[in-house]
């Protein structure tokens, strides 16, 4: 009886020791992985910072302005391009029967969007679109 208890105790102790050992080992492994991950995260975070700074550097307003001036046919939005309903001219008289209204889309050529030069409220000729402000 005593022998059995002693034997069982020994087995239990060995199992406990083995369990603890593997536990500690696993924890160490995990810690190692965690350390590597932390380092990677820190590196990535630093990379992101660098990329953000790069993004900001390459998007300097002055640089973009120069590039647009050289490469694109865009111009700064002029206040005249933004029109509110109240500033649009009155609509002409209602369509009389028998009179055909010519719409821009009916014309054989595309609208060039030529505005009246010198008139402040007219749509500028180079404006890509006319925005209607709310």
């Amino acid at each position, binding site marked *: 009886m005593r022998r059995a208890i002693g034997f069982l105790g020994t087995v239990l102790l060995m199992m406990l020791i083995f369990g603890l050992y593997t536990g500690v080992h696993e924890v160490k492994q995990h810690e190692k992985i*965690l350390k590597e991950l932390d380092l990677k995260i820190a590196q990535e975070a630093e990379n992101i910072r660098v990329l953000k*700074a790069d993004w900001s550097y390459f998007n300097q307003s002055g640089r973009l302005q120069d590039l647009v001036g050289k490469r694109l046919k865009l111009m700064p939005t002029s206040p*005249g391009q933004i029109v509110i309903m109240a500033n649009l001219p009155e609509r002409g008289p209602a369509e009389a029967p028998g009179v055909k209204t010519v719409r821009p889309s009916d014309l054989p050529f595309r609208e060039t969007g030529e505005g009246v030069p010198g008139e*402040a409220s007219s749509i500028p000729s180079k404006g890509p679109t006319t925005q209607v402000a709310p």
Partner: protein
Amino acid sequence: MTNGDMQNRKTDARGALAKTRQRLSVAMTGLLVVFTLLMGRLFEVTVLREPSIGRSVASVNETSLYRADIVDRRGEILATDLRGASLFADGREIWDPADAARQLARVIPGLDADAVARRLSTRQAFVWIKRNISPAQQAAVRQLGLPALHFREEPRRVYPNGRTASHVLGFVNVDNHGLAGLERGIENTIIERRNKGGVVELSLDLRVQHALEDELAAAMARFQAKAAAGIVMDVNNGEILGLSSMPDFDPNEPGSGQKDALFNRATLGVFEMGSTFKLFTMAAALDAGKASIASTYDVRTPIAEGPFIIRDTHPQDRVLTMPEVLMHSSNIGTVMIARQAGADVQQAYLRRFGLLNAVPFELRESAGPLLPKNWGQIELATTSYGYGLSVSPLHVAAATAAVVNGGIHHKPTLLKRDSRADVTQTRVLLPETSARMREMMRMVVASGTGRQADVPGYPVAGKTGTAEKQVGSGYDKTRVRTSFVGVFPAKAPQYLVLVLLDEPKPTAETKGYATAGWTAAPTAGKVISRIAPMLNVPVAPIEAPATPPATFASYEELR
């Protein structure tokens, strides 16, 4: 063997057995104690103790500061900390200081080989070679394979937008300590934010800042001006969207430009502002009930005041109403208005507008005004049209905002305001006075000296100012400082634009004039036409073209 012997042996054996048993139990107890201790320790180590996770904490440098990013109101990065490497050597490990220094000077341009050799030959354990070297240089140094060279990781402050907003941001020294601008002015906030993992949000709008700088630089080139300054401000809460002083500098290399470039003209420079001060004289007289817009002033004869004779730049030779005095920027008329109000009223209101004290501001580069020594009749007269009292452009911007926004003075700020709750505000004018001032300022732009500042779609209200520069004891008529302070939209102003040009020269385009109406006003107009669409300011219905009102009656019609 005798029986007695047997007996003896038996007792001996029994004694030995007992002894052994005793020893065994002692050994067992000892082992038990030891193992219990071991188990306990094991339990403590594996279960109880806090896991000491080896987070890679970079060796914290005692000298270098880690700072939070600075971003504009839309989150664009204006300043950030990047990881930089600094090169140092262990002098004890260097074999040949002169050779090592020569090799280093080859890969790091600008390194003084002799100085490095001298420092290395002291055989000290720690010798800085170069702080903040680039990654390419770091690789080149590694390639040298010298044993005694080491790198220390340090934060390096980078301003990706270069010169943009340089006077607002300021710059730092090699240890990342702020030396100028916000980097110095709100250094504690920047470091605290960094420790909490946040960023510092400014009220600046990078797009507005660029438009302002671009137009100021263009104006400086066009009029060959010596310097320029500009401010864009939200009149309803004091937030500054753009602040620029030209010439400016690159905060990444603050020492590289002209020394003059570090001087912030928008906040630290104090100037006699000239006619823009007429706004404050009139607002004071109106608000105190000492004059009304119907008051008339005979400006036909110049006023003699002490040693000065006060004349008009644009003589009208007739009787003017108060709005006309402002429109034509009559000095004589303004002095009359100031006399109506009196010195006490004038001073009380200038104080209310914050013009007699330093502006409480985030930048330490913020100057107090230069006040006249005693405030007699002469000072009453000269101050009324902006001479004899020097203030910074920031003073004028904050005061003008109060004049047009319904009469509330806000502390100007460079930090983004979260809500209306944390706005420091003081009522300085009656709402009606503010409304009258807006109307008069609109007339200055619609048909007075500020016509060139007007922008179709965004009616501007404002005032020009042309101040002769003091040379010795007198004033030089040929050297002027021109300014324009304008707000838009005129009816319910949202934003203020202030432009100041130092010694603009006349051009063919300006028909030989270098006054504010020909230099500062069109510059402000260009700034407004660029920033108004960006800031989503609604377009105003087209006004009927305004004609210059000849009399007060026609002014009434215009309203």
